[in-house]
């Protein structure tokens, strides 16, 4: 019986992970995954990071994936182990992050009996994964794992879950290596590899005709790889067309470049939103016309011809109807556009869009990101600006939680490279940033990893500070502490008559002492005089640091397109008043 070519399900899993060049796995043990943990005990290629709650494992895997471009992997037990990762899987699905989640399941013969720690894992995770599997036969395990990695990373990336009953982890079979698997094309959905030449020609002829073109770039550009961003930079430099990016597109194009209008959308730059509203040609590169970007749809960029490059066919014409589209990969398409320009000697020299740039520069004069920093209380915007100035020379990765601090980070921290900015956009998951920083630091041990946080979000996954301490991950948690769920308070102020229902965060811990109790380091800045020193001290310490930055409690995040308003109806400051009709309509939106 003891066939040398046969391995247990647990060993097959480890062999497959090795084959997939996985070097790090985030996880938490439990009854239904003990055979896998036993296999992990006896090997040394795979580093297991023990999180403190499974939600931490999934966000860490997301942070790992986003910062490295590789697939993030996590391992959790059945029942509560799995239900704890549902938020993270949904987050990864919304933001197209490639992760593979391995979950244990009760033994096959107990499935359906309401056994201890049993839940319908594939049922619960079906709508929040790109695909999922319940492996009932150990002989199918190798193939399933390899297909899972392929699906997670192909086309529009996303999370894939593999549920493995405990008896399958013990059962034996042959191992089939990655190179011996032939994938079935219809299941992988990698997108077309053939560039649509007509699309390229149409686009270039429209660029030549247009007076007011704009690039609108999203996270798809990031997922297409670093080369996509190189090709984009080339194209923007050749054409002198202004470019705005979504929250996830930040870093695909250097934020300090003169052609960059910065982020667009609800808290985007005035010039970016106005340019979107008034443009006559919109070139969407891997963005999905999200409601946070478009504002009121019937007033969205009314006069433009729209081109859309997106590998996901379902993103085309979903929210906004476009005139031309292609589903081919962004890198391939941009490359073709650039080489078409070169080989046909298309000269944009006479086409410098000077009127358009003149108009944009007028909008820029509004200085929509202006704020008044006094000489005592720290303005949150200023805290981010100083953080940027004091860290921009370093090799830095920034993660965030969700809320006002996230938007200020997007506005005031400038990114020059892709994959340096790791945030929860689509789902807006509070508690994302710190575990994501753990993952990013695992993938980039020598880099500076900062979680820009709010005190409320940070408390949602506070337990992971222990993970950072255990693995000596010197992540920095930069808390803009205003004692409020700031974004909730801001909406209550704007839409609900300043009735701050349950948005004050009472009974906050002393973050300095909290850090010390975890054997991390706590630092604090109470006023403007202490800010730079505190930031410098935080950076200089080679251990996990919690920096408690006391900021103006009542500061709001501007500019802002209120829900239900259009791009040109932005509020620039608290002195701008919203159109009351929009306000009533916006109230019912998110």
């Amino acid at each position, binding site marked *: 019986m003891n066939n040398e070519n046969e391995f247990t399900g647990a060993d097959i899993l480890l062999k497959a992970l090795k084959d997939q060049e996985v070097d790090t796995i985030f996880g938490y043990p439990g009854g239904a995954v003990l055979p896998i943990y036993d296999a992990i005990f006896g090997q040394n290629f795979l580093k297991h990071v023990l999180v403190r709650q499974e939600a931490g494992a999934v966000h860490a895997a997301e942070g790992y994936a986003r910062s490295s471009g590789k697939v993030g992997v996590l391992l959790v037990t059945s029942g509560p182990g799995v239900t704890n990762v549902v938020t993270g899987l949904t987050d990864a699905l919304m933001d197209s992050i490639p992760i593979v989640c391995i979950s244990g399941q009760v033994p096959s013969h107990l499935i359906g009996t309401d056994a201890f720690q049993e839940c319908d894992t*594939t*049922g619960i995770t*079906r*709508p929040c994964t*790109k*695909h*999922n599997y*319940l492996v009932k036969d150990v002989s199918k395990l190798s193939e399933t794992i390899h297909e899972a990695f392929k*699906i997670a990373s192909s086309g529009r990336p996303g999370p894939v879950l593999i549920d493995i009953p405990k008896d399958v982890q013990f059962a034996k079979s042959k191992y089939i290596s990655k190179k011996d698997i032939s994938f079935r094309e*219809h*299941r992988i*959905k990698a997108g077309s590899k053939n560039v649509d030449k007509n699309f390229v020609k149409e686009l270039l002829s429209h660029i030549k005709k247009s007076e007011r073109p704009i690039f609108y770039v999203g996270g798809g550009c990031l997922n297409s790889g670093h080369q996509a961003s190189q090709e984009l930079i080339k194209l923007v430099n050749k054409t002198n067309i202004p470019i705005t990016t979504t929250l996830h597109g930040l870093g695909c194009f250097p934020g300090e470049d003169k052609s960059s209008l910065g982020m667009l959308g609800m808290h985007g730059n005035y010039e970016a939103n106005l340019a979107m509203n008034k443009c006559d040609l919109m070139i969407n590169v891997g963005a999905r016309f999200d409601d946070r970007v478009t504002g009121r749809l019937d007033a969205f960029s009314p006069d433009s011809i729209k081109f859309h490059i997106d590998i*996901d*066919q*379902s993103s*085309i*014409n*979903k929210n906004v*109807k476009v005139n031309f589209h292609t589903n081919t990969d962004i890198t391939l398409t941009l490359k073709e556009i650039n080489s078409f320009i070169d080989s046909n000697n298309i000269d944009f020299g006479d086409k410098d869009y000077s009127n358009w740039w003149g108009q944009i520069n007028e909008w820029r004069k509004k200085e929509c990101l202006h704020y008044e920093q006094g000489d005592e209380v720290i303005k949150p915007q200023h805290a981010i600006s100083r953080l940027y100035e004091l860290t921009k020379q370093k090799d830095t990765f920034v993660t965030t939680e969700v809320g006002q601090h996230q938007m200020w980070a997007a506005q005031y921290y400038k990114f020059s490279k892709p994959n340096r900015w790791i945030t929860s956009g689509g789902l807006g998951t509070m508690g994302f940033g710190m575990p994501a920083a753990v993952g990013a630091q695992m993938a980039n041990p020598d880099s500076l990893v900062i979680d820009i946080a709010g005190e409320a979000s940070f408390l949602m996954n506070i337990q992971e500070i222990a993970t950072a301490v255990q693995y000596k991950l010197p992540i920095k948690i930069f808390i803009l502490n205003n004692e409020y769920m700031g974004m909730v308070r801001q909406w209550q102020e704007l839409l609900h008559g300043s009735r701050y229902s349950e948005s004050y965060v009472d009974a906050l811990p002393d973050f300095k002492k909290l850090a010390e109790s975890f054997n991390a380091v706590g630092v604090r800045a109470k006023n403007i005089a202490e800010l730079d020193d505190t930031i410098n001290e935080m950076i200089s310490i080679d251990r996990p640091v919690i920096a408690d930055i006391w900021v103006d409690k009542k500061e709001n995040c501007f500019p802002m397109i209120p829900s239900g308003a259009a791009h040109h109806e932005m509020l620039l400051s608290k002195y701008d008043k919203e159109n009351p009709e929009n306000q009533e309509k916006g109230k019912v939106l998110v």
Partner: protein
Amino acid sequence: MSSTSVYPTPINAFKQSKRSVLSVIVDNEPGILARIVGLFSGRGYNIEALNVTVVDVKKNLSRITIETLGEEKVISQIIAQLEKLVPVHSATNLANLSESYEAEICLVKIEFENEEQDQKILNFADIYRSRTVQKRQNIVVYEISGTSERINKFLDDLDTIGGIKVELVRSGPIGLGI
């Protein structure tokens, strides 16, 4: 009584909700039907009728036929979403094909009370060329097939006969493009 408008009120003048029949070829694997049904309910689409059967045992393929309602934009979005599901080979809107055929099968059990009703039923059954499956005493079972519309009309006609009891089952439409 409410007065009649001097101008007709357009109903859904801009949003034309159309009936569409979608034909989806999938790998026959556990959970595939749940994936498709979940996609419809999760995204707020309607399923008017649904039919699933293995069509190729060797290749392990099933064909799922879904009747749904929605404006054209919604139908295109449904198809794009269906085609993203891993086990889905293809999703086709039969209405977009140059030539396609559609059929539905319906079994109708009718209980009648008198000769006159029986004659009327027989008459309709004859017009619609429906097959008698069984007839005993005052109960008759017919099988009728064709497009859903044809079956609807047959049932509407039966409705005009007073006093009979009708029980029925319908397969939902299936269709094939050429």
